[in-house]
């Protein structure tokens, strides 16, 4: 395989293979036995028994065969099949009712078989862990620094004293600083178990401030077992540094969680702030307009099953239109006859909300619909070993701020915005100035409903798309609007975000159920003191 010893990459692979052979979890690399061993491992995979499969994985990994990595990866991903006819193990990919199979040994295509003629090789969690560890060992020699880093981190909890020399050798060859740091930390973790006091002290210096959970667990172990006072003292101080850092990042994380919950509240409530604030209509069907937006996302994803990301972007204008039109229809057909009669409006819109829910149940079935999340919105942004922010929440936080900014600009800068503000501040005066108040009402209601639809697109990424989606958010939306101040966008933004943050800071202390109750009680008390909310509306009409 490596004919020229000068090639550095080859050298690294050779080195690692030799190194691995010293690790207790990797056996010696037999140059001759490898083919036989690999084949034996593959044959063992045909057995149904999980302990046999465990032995198979071990054999395949130990064989050092260059096909081993691909086989283990396929096993992990569930693309390894057993053909029932000749009991052979092949790679397979499902296409409709057929499975296209490829040989493991030669990599050539073997045609396709019917779905029932081949059975997927199943694994369980224990095997999954085993495969991941084996793969990590192979990945230590991966040319990609990020993969190497992951591999080092993955192996950190399984380190033993024997691995120390080879880690040191790996470290000598390592060019990437992050991977070097991880290797140094691994060596230091092993150093903590050293019988020499000096070495333990040195390791502690190295590990000071390292946030990897493996380090913290090792320090805890050391503190329990350590006899030497100097080491004990140093270990305790190292642990307390780490713990204060963890506490700090925990606070950052909590703040982020709060903002993200708040941004969802703002999105859900901002449309209501407009309809409630401008026309003074208590729209109980607001939640169902959000639901319509979420279902629009579902429908568009059904139409474009191959490009989920694009479908999501298209859903934003589409949901705005669908919910906006629904809103205008509701306003023109029901609400405009009930202006000035808040109780009747409340009941009428509650009725509409039930009608919309049942309509969705009849059209889409009462079962929840599955809306997919595009790949770029799943997973998380790892800032350090203990702080990671989930991408979907970041996206929605940014999105809700954008929606807020857009809406704010629309109301402040456009002529329709001017009219809306005029009507909301003093309807009679606006009418006298030639503003067609009825038209403005309809448009405002449509705008608020459209924004609810956009909120639905965002919520479809976070929660279940089902007939009850709206009900879950209507109370929260009213809470935010009342708290923030009726008819004030800034109030809604600030109200939503602060309620979100307060909720998240209360939750670990009081539990999710009590936190909600406390927030509600707080708002009731707040409204007693300031019935106008955080930002009361200015102007003569706001009496």
């Amino acid at each position, binding site marked *: 395989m490596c004919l020229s010893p000068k090639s550095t990459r080859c050298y690294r692979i050779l080195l690692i293979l030799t190194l691995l052979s010293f690790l207790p979890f990797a056996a010696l690399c037999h140059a001759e036995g490898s083919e036989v061993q690999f084949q034996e491992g593959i044959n063992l995979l045909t057995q149904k028994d999980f302990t046999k499969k465990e032995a198979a994985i071990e054999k395949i990994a130990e064989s050092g065969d260059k096909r081993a990595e691909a086989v283990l990866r396929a096993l992990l991903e569930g693309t390894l099949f057993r053909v029932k006819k000749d009991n052979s193990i092949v790679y397979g990919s499902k296409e409709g009712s057929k499975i296209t199979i490829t040989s493991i040994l030669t990599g050539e295509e073997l045609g396709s078989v019917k779905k029932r003629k081949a059975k997927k090789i199943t694994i369980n*969690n*224990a095997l999954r862990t085993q495969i991941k560890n084996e793969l990590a060992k192979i990945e230590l020699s991966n040319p990609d620094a990020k993969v190497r880093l992951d591999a080092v981190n993955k192996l950190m909890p399984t380190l033993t004293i024997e691995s120390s020399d080879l880690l040191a050798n790996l470290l000598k060859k390592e060019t990437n600083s992050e991977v070097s740091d991880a290797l140094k930390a691994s060596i230091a973790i092993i150093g903590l178990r050293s019988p020499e006091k000096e070495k333990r002290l040195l390791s502690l210096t190295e590990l000071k401030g390292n946030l990897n959970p493996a380090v913290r667990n090792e320090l*805890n172990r050391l503190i329990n077992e350590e006899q030497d006072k100097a080491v004990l003292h140093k270990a305790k101080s190292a642990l307390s540094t780490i713990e204060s850092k963890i506490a700090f990042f925990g606070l950052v994380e909590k703040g982020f969680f709060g903002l993200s919950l708040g941004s969802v509240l703002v999105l859900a409530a901002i449309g209501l702030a407009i309809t409630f604030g401008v026309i003074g209509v208590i729209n109980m069907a607001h939640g169902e307009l959000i639901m319509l937006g979420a279902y629009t996302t579902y429908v568009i994803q059904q139409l474009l099953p191959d490009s989920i990301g694009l479908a999501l972007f298209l859903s934003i204008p589409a949901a705005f239109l669908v919910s906006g039109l629904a809103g205008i229809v509701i306003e023109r057909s029901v609400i405009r006859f009930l202006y000035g009669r808040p109780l009747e409006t409340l009941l009428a819109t509650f009725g509409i909300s039930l009608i919309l829910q049942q309509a969705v149940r009849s059209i889409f079935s009462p079962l*929840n619909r599955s809306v997919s999340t595009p790949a770029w919105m799943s997973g998380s942004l790892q800032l350090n070993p203990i702080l990671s922010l989930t991408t979907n929440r970041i996206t929605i936080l940014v999105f809700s701020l954008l929606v807020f900014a857009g809406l704010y600009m629309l109301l402040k800068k456009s002529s329709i915005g001017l009219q809306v503000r005029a009507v909301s501040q003093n309807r009679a005066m606006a009418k006298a100035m030639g503003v067609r108040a009825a038209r403005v009402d309809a448009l405002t209601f449509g705008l608020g409903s459209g924004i609810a639809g956009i909120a639905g697109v965002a919520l479809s990424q976070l*929660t279940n798309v*089902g007939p009850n989606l709206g009900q879950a958010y209507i109370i929260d939306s009213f809470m935010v609007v009342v708290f923030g101040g009726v008819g004030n966008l800034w109030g809604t933004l600030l109200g939503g975000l602060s309620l979100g943050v307060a909720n998240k800071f209360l939750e670990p202390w009081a*539990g*999710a159920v009590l936190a909600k109750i406390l927030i509600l009680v707080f708002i009731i008390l707040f409204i007693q003191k300031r019935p106008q909310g955080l930002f009361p509306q200015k102007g003569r009409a706001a009496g």
Partner: protein
Amino acid sequence: MKSKLLSLSLGCALMSGSLFGGQALAEDTIKVGVLHSLSGTMAISETTLKDTMLMLIDEQNKKGGLLGKKLEAVVVDPASNWPLFAEKARELIEKDKVSSVFGCWTSVSRKSVLPVFEELNSLLFYPVQYEGEESSRNVFYTGAAPNQQAIPAVDYLMNDIGVKRWVLAGTDYVYPRTTNKILEAYLKAKGVATEDIMINYTPFGHSDWQSIVSDIKKFGSAGKKTAVVSTINGDANVPFYKELGNQGITADKIPVVAFSVGEEELSGVDTEPLVGHLAAWNYFMSVDAAVNDDFIESWQKFIKNENRVTNDPMEAHYIGFNMWVKAVEKAGTTDPTAVQDAIIGVTVPNLTGGYSAMMPNHHITKPVLIGEIQNDGQFEVVWKTSGMVVGDAWSDYLEGSKDLISDWRTPLSCGNYNVKTGKCSGQQ
């Protein structure tokens, strides 16, 4: 004697059928009540069970009905509204004169209808796993009791996976609270320290799981193998699993074993990040048994959708319905008191290839299976009990309940007989 009676009544039915035509036949049916929510929050789960009952009744009619009469389903919609369950149950029994009722999902709905069934002496077959601590003369519990689901699942995690730290997460209502109380007592009895158990409750339909999942992650990073035992109910599971996936908690790091997540719940979810998480049930759609294949086939044909899945509560109705049919045939009448006596000891095939029997405590025998979620939304069985497990109404791990037994046979005929004091308190 019994067969003579049967043929006599069969003959009568046939004669009346031929003499008076279809109308007389329609009047002379055995009515079966179906009490499942078709609207509201629980519609998502209960609608399927209503359809299952319609299918079972339909199949029984094709086989010639029962006691020579056709069965007729009376479907009502209690709309996920707990007090309405009691009203609808009363309506079914008093107005429609049904001979038995199959229904309810949540424990609170069962508690709501219980006094109605006891007052009017009718029969309820309850198909969902529940928290135990109850035994009524009028209710047959065909779902799992805690010792048929929760306890074996914890045993599996402890002995086979080596779990040392436990998160008990649940929705805030009676089933998770009681189950977790039992599990906590059980874990402590097994020597698990208090600081290695974390208990968390969330409201129905909870969707913001960020901080809870982050707490679980921190709890699980202490170097001991950690698992989550989830009694989270209904659709709150979807955002929960999504958040687990996003925060990078995969099944090999912290496995989640769920008692309320089945094939039906997974059918609306992208299962990729869930692969390897566990569920404990008494039935999985993927179980390899001829009787199961037949059931799946007839279900998909009945519902006219090849993608519909089957799940555990459906199997419970299958077992319960067949037991009731057999008991009615044995008693020769649909009279509730006669059926109550006849049904104890009745054994019918279940869908996992074995036989389930109705025990004197009105619970049934079932196998316990642990499955891992696969990327096609199905479960792969990774562990199962060697034999059938008898449902235990009163948990052996709770103070005040461990001395109680339930036996509805004469002479005892008591739902909560205290073996220490030798007294039957209340339920009889």
